[in-house]
């Protein structure tokens, strides 16, 4: 453990870095409680913009669409992404592996306009009507790659002798996977699901290309209002979304930490026994 190396320069750069990262979000949250309609003039504390949100039916509809798409696409993406991670870490030689790993990593950096346009053209070519289904399919495709990367990094540090022991004792590969592998990589799978969920919740560009009438998502709705200018209502929606995501991430990391502590304790107990 090296604590002596944290110089004043390090502390200053960390402080400034975090100020840069968090100040804009903090200001946005503060101004969502502004009584004045002029967003940048402080007119006293008020929660009126939150009350106004509940009256906005279009916004609520969009939120419901977004939630359904995010739940379904995150779940399917997690299954596919976990399979992809297993394929990449467990099978080092199969025909087309280079193409496969390319297809897993490329969507991580692919500009969204390209992904959106290409998926839209596919849906038109196969005659699939644009709507919630097409947005969900699109979100599964790019989110599964993020899940694959998260799960893969856990699998790379996985002690495979556990699996070998189970199979030596007569477990089938499938049984070994469910009894040994899955519980160990579960935290990574959960954080993969959460990542997929928030990616779907946030996506504007791909959804704009692949969605049709009647399937407007929340980011599309927010975007169309943002283009008209900054309003306190948008600040209020954004604050709610930030609160939901922050709570989710903090709870997940606490749960993860507790599991980690538990695991270490179990291992120590096992070591003594």
């Amino acid at each position, binding site marked *: *453990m*090296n604590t002596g190396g944290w*110089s004043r*320069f*390090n*502390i200053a750069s960390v402080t400034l*870095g975090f100020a*840069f*990262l968090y100040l*804009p979000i903090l200001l*946005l949250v503060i101004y969502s409680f502004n009584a004045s309609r002029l*967003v*940048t003039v402080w007119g006293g504390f008020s929660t009126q913009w939150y009350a106004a949100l509940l009256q906005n039916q279009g916004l609520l509809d969009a939120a419901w669409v977004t939630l359904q798409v995010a739940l379904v696409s995150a779940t399917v993406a997690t299954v*596919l992404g976990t*399979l992809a991670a297993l*394929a990449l870490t*467990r*099978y*080092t*030689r*199969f*025909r*087309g592996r280079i193409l*496969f*790993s*390319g*297809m897993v990593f*490329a969507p991580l*950096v*692919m*500009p*969204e*306009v*390209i992904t959106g*346009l*290409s998926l839209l*053209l596919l849906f*038109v*070519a*196969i005659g699939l*009507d644009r709507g919630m289904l097409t947005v969900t399919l699109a979100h599964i495709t790019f989110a599964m790659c993020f899940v694959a990367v998260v799960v893969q*990094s856990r699998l790379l*540090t996985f002690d495979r002798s556990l699996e070998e022991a189970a*199979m030596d004792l*007569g477990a*089938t*590969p499938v049984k070994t*996977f469910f009894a040994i592998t899955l519980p160990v990589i579960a935290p990574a799978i959960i954080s993969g699901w959460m990542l997929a969920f928030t990616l779907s*919740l946030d996506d*504007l*560009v791909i959804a*704009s*290309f692949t969605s*049709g009438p009647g399937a407007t998502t929340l*980011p599309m709705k927010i*975007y169309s209002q*943002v283009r008209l200018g900054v309003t306190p209502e948008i600040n209020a929606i954004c604050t709610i*979304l*930030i609160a939901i995501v922050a709570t*989710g991430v903090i709870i997940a990391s606490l749960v993860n930490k507790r599991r980690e502590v538990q695991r270490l304790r179990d291992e120590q107990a096992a070591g003594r026994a």
Partner: protein
Amino acid sequence: MTIPVAPGTDIPTKNESRPVWSRGILRALSSRLVILVPYLWLLAFFLVPFAIVVKISFSQTTLAIPPYTPVLEGVGSLWQNLREFSFDNYLWLTQDALYFNAYVTSVVIAAVSTVLALLVGYPLAYGVARAPSALRPLLLMLVILPFWTSFLIRVYAWIGILKPEGLLNQFLMAIGLIDQPLLIMNTYTAIFIGIVYSYLPFMVLPLYAALEKMDYSLIEAAQDLGCTRSSAFWKITFPLSRPGIIAGCMLVFIPAVGEFVIPDLLGGSQTLMIGKTLWNEFFANRDWPVSSAVAVILLLLLVVPIMIFQQAQARQQEQGR
């Protein structure tokens, strides 16, 4: 098209308690499914769509499919389009200087933003890596947390800060630093700020991963041997963190070239970036073949950076094994 084949040699086979053939079939089947399902999905929804983009980019503009055509007609005209192969759309891109300028501007903006993100991200990543180890998980989570909050929201937050009557100008005028509001909104500066801000976690995380693994006694040794602080940094820390620098820069540069939201919301109507051009070509002009051609050229521009990223990723995998 290649079909993945299970290696069958990966799983050790010892102490078979069942008939060999039943284990063999189960293993072959499960391993084949593990590979096949995600493989086919990505082929269908990632590779095939690209093929369609390429094909449509070679179709004739006059036969462009307007959005929302009836499904059957859409497919019919699509196939008709494909038969009439033409370079018209690419010629069109070379004739109008707008596209060329948009590509150049995008690459320059992305490159400048990447360098700025490295300058901001390196000290931050270094500070987090050198933090007391009890504090590190918390700091790391603080780096990642903004990445989880919506991209759109984070860009939107800057509008209220940067606009002429916004919070930054109010603040600077209140402390008497300036008399006239700074015009940052709708300029390249606003785009730089937006990209650096939005992509900073992508830069910091790989840098942190590289810096955290580093053995800091090397620096002490160098200083004991008479190296100054800065020469120790350039001779030891910087070269050792190079994999992180490459990965971080690619993770910022590649998506930034095709960025749409940031130039659209912060850059105003005059700034020309290719992602925005593609969006306008598609949604405003409804010219699908030209927007496909724009996408193909954009992808060609990004092939080299994407390959560098893939290689860095593959090397990391090798190390982890």
